[in-house]
């Protein structure tokens, strides 16, 4: 055998072992989702049979139907949708203004204020959770969606400012300056030039905020009650209420993650760009 084909063979082997390793890692990462889905379409008999099956003999969507008919899963879904949407709108509105100021103005105390926004991401969740519980209780807004939305802004606002600031810094100032020379004021230049160009980034940031609010559990379990429980809390409560009904639990899980996956796949490219920019530059 000549040297060249030996090298080819070695390269082929190396690539093959890489593919196998990748496949193993992917199976590890994705199997839990497959298993959750399979569980959600298994009939109860098969779920608790002595023999574990890797694909149901008779797939059924009964668990999904029961989830809505017996336990009114619409309610937590609507609650989550409300909280996540309002959190997104509020966070984006205030963060966009602040990020614009940080990116486009050089003013006294700029560094100090940026520090404030960066630092507060470092506080442990539980350090905010405990006093917020006491404060919300005193203010009489505990167990209302407002309590949840406000507590989510503790991490969504700093994060959005950081992301949007990065995106804005990448947009050349010359664009607005040209418009302003032509007689537009700053606000007009922002609305007509910056906003349309920034839109995909705003959408990506918004998607991330929505996902974190939709997924959040630790605040939600302490700040909601029966009436305004969000999906994560409802899912956890199923364990207490139903004994352990794995069929319905996994069905609820699949329903929860579908919107997240769809949003993530759409926003993914910009989001990854924005997230990695800081760390990679650093």
């Amino acid at each position: 055998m000549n040297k060249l084909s030996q090298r080819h063979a070695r390269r082929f082997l190396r690539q093959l072992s890489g593919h196998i390793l990748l496949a193993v890692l992917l199976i590890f990462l994705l199997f839990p989702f497959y298993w959750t889905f399979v569980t959600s379409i298994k009939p109860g008999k098969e779920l608790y049979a002595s023999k574990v099956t890797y694909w149901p003999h008779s797939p059924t969507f009964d668990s999904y139907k029961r989830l809505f008919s017996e336990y009114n899963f619409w309610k937590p879904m609507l609650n989550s949708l409300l909280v996540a949407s309002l959190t997104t709108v509020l966070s984006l509105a205030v963060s966009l203004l602040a990020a614009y100021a940080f990116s486009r103005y050089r003013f006294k105390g700029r560094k100090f204020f940026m520090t404030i926004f960066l630092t507060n991401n470092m506080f442990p969740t539980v350090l905010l959770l405990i006093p917020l519980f006491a404060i919300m209780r005193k203010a009489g807004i505990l167990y209302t969606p407002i309590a949840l939305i406000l507590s989510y802004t503790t991490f969504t606002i700093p994060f959005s400012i950081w992301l949007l600031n990065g995106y804005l810094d990448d947009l050349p100032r010359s664009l607005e300056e040209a418009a302003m020379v032509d007689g537009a004021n700053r606000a007009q230049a922002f609305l007509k030039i910056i906003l349309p160009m920034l839109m995909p980034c705003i959408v990506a940031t918004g998607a991330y905020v929505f996902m974190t609010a939709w997924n959040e559990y630790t605040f939600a379990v302490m700040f909601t009650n029966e009436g305004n429980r969000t999906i994560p809390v409802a899912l956890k409560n199923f364990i207490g209420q139903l004994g352990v009904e794995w069929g319905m639990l996994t069905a609820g899980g699949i329903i929860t993650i579908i919107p997240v996956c769809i949003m993530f796949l759409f926003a993914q490219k910009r989001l990854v760009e924005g997230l990695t920019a800081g760390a990679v530059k650093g």
Partner: protein
Amino acid sequence: MHKKKLSPWPYLLIAPALITIIAVVFFPVINAILMSFQSYDLRRPSQIRFTGLANYFAAAQDPLFWQALLKTIVWVAAGVWFQFVFGFMLALLLNRKFLGRGLIRSISLIPWVTPGVLIGLMWRWIFDGNYGVLNDLLVRLGLIRQNVPFLAQQSTAFPSVILTIIWQGIPFFALMLLAGLQGIPEELYDAADVDGANAFQRFFMITVPSLKNTIFVTTLLRIIWVANSVDVIFNLTEGGPAYSTQTLSVYVFNKGNALNLGYASTMAILLALVLSMVAIPYLKTLFKAQEESK
């Protein structure tokens, strides 16, 4: 274009965000500090009063506090280390050219956006002692004879929750490291090839040094997140059995749920102090990066 005269606009623009953050972050943190000096138990509201350092002394003498602190260190060290190792592996594997790479990259990130509750529930079902698929697989492979109640016994519960957090964190490391890998200029590797470097040398002489900053920042970020994480452990074991999976965050959460806010605040502050060892270098790096990019 730099405005030298003092314009009110930047201040007005940051005001809404600033006011919100002061109200929901800084005001509560001050409250937590105050509560940590009080006997503040909502089950006994009539007895709320200042007790000085009593809560701190109580923590120092609380064996569960020290155990939780130790658990936190193991949880973070083991969790983040393996997230890094497997995340790096995944990033290297995804950095090659092959068909369907974009799709596989996106899909492999999904654990990162999965709600903590769902992660807890999915793995709880996988680890289940009676019907769990992990037991079934291990029995089929002949590795165990009879089912192991992974989450119900002390010896296996903590390794099981750590495995779960590793699973969750691999994609984030892979995402950051992959972005870093793509920023390494091809010429560096070409030059190494000319010099006759093998794959091992290329990895340690080029790849790792080029990714130094990414690795540093991502690791610090992950340490903070993993230390703060409550939902995964709480939904797997609630800190049990016999407190064997109770990290400091989970302990604070459990105390908060029990409405003992004074003591919970004390421990949360101690956790924040421990974490500041990681948070401060992280912030310093971020600022350096910001200054340089300006």
